[in-house]
């Protein structure tokens, strides 16, 4: 084999290996989507989506309360984590170029990688123990701690991407610094910040471990923030535990499909928001 054709062979080999690895990397996603749709779709019905669990072994029980619970938990979590994360992000971007800022940024990154079960234990020991029982509130606190570092970081990065010329223009108009931050910089960065919020919602929507320790799960519709509540990931887990009942197994697949559609549409929404742009948040999407 001549030197030249050997080089060509190596080139083809490297290319082929690349394609193979891409296929291997995509295989789990494709097979998960396929299995979830194949098993979940037949289980989907108006009754399943609207009825509460009631008795999980009952073939006519639904996942309406779990869908409702997940949406309520997302809402409560956003109410806590978005304002705090947003202002923390503004602070880090605008005033965080010092030792304190660097420390906060480091701790924030550590928190973002924290095992969620540990955060669940924390919420359990503060909220559940204080109230004396499991509650939606405790779950929202746990999920907020998971959401907060993502919102903070994406807000900071999006704000930093706003060109300094925009800030200069506002300052030169005699607009005060806090006004410039809120009304000019934040508005310019809003797509990136929204992206971060949607991605963090996608992340918390699928969290299971911290919910086991905080909201417990429930067979009924929402009855107060201080009461246990159900959520889709919890419902999937409960259905799995009762998978010797064929109806519970089917409902579990249905719940999985609903959850996957929810998370996927959030991600697609992010793609839609960040069309033609390259931002830190997009890189994470």
């Amino acid at each position: 084999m001549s030197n030249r054709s050997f080089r060509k062979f190596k080139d083809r080999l490297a290319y082929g290996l690349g394609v193979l690895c891409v296929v291997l990397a995509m295989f789990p996603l494709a097979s998960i989507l396929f299995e979830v749709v194949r098993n979940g779709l037949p289980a989907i019905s108006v009754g399943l989506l609207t009825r509460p669990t009631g008795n999980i072994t009952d073939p006519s029980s639904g996942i309406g309360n779990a869908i409702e619970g997940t949406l309520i938990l997302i809402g409560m979590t956003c109410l806590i984590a978005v304002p705090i994360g947003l202002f923390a992000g503004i602070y880090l971007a605008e005033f965080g170029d010092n030792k304190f800022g660097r420390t906060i940024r480091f701790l924030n990154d550590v928190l973002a990688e924290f095992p969620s079960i540990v955060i669940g234990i924390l919420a359990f020991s503060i909220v559940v123990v204080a109230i004396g029982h499991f509650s939606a509130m405790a779950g929202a606190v746990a999920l907020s701690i998971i959401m907060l570092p993502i919102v903070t970081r994406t807000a900071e990065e999006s704000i930093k991407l706003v060109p300094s010329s925009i800030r200069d223009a506002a300052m030169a108009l005699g607009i005060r610094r806090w006004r410039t931050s809120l009304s000019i910089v934040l508005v310019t960065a809003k797509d990136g910040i929204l992206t971060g919020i949607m991605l963090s919602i996608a992340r918390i929507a699928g969290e299971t471990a911290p919910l086991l320790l905080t909201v417990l799960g429930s067979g009924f519709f929402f009855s107060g923030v201080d009461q246990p509540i159900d959520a889709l990931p919890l419902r999937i887990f409960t259905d799995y535990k009762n998978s010797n009942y064929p109806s519970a197994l089917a409902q579990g697949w249905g719940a999985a499909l609903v959850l996957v559609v929810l998370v996927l549409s959030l991600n697609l929404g992010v793609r839609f928001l960040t069309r033609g742009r390259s931002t830190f948040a997009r890189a994470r999407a």
Partner: protein
Amino acid sequence: MTLSLQLEELKPASSEASAIRSTMEKFKIQTEKLNAWFANNHVLKDLSINVKENEVTAIIGPSGCGKSTFIRCLNRMHELVPGARSSGAVLLDNTNVYARGTDPVTVRRKVGMVFQKPNPFPTMSVYDNVAAGLKLNGVRDHQKLDRAVKRSLELAFLWDEVKTDLDKSGVSLSGGQQQRLCIARALAVEPEVILMDEPCSALDPIATAKIEELIASLKSQYTVVIVTHNMQQAARVSDSTAFLYLGKLIEYGGTTQLFENPKEELTERYLTGKFG
């Protein structure tokens, strides 16, 4: 006794007095031993320049001579850069803008600025760009805003081109229109002085000509200080010119005198293209 009588006779009637005063040159901005630093880099050295009211003053000089830093000191934008500081005085109508207790925000409302690259607010419409300075300083009266937007766009020679597209995004305009939008935005807050930092360097010759025409029309109402790289532009638009070199004021005088008969050898060498 006779002397005081003579003085009495010499004293003109009050209407004549005001006429005389208005023809007298008045200094809008005076800098006194202005120095500026970026960290340890001493970029302006003892600059003392008197800017006349209702004139266009051009600041020329080679890159890095401190032209931009100089005008950024006039509206206290220089200090926004981390590590930047300055010393000396900048008198605006005889009041030091660096006096203790002076709020830089109020200085910037009186001394507007236009930047090298057009920088309209990207998320805002043409209308909102012009109204931004007023709105964000608390003006809510829609009629007042409408009037200010129209007046500013007219002053900036942009009204006829955008009057039907006020809701369009500011960044959808052409580069030259964007720069005139930025000038309109600066004019809307009714400043007394307009600083321009190489306002035409990112524009084509036709857009540049429009901006130059605009600058000439602005001086009846405003005092303009323009930094430019382009000596011909300085000669065309300005009444007075200051030549800076390595952070020092080399020569300052009437534009015609400075260009046709420079006193300093360094100025002549720069103007004739021997360096820079």
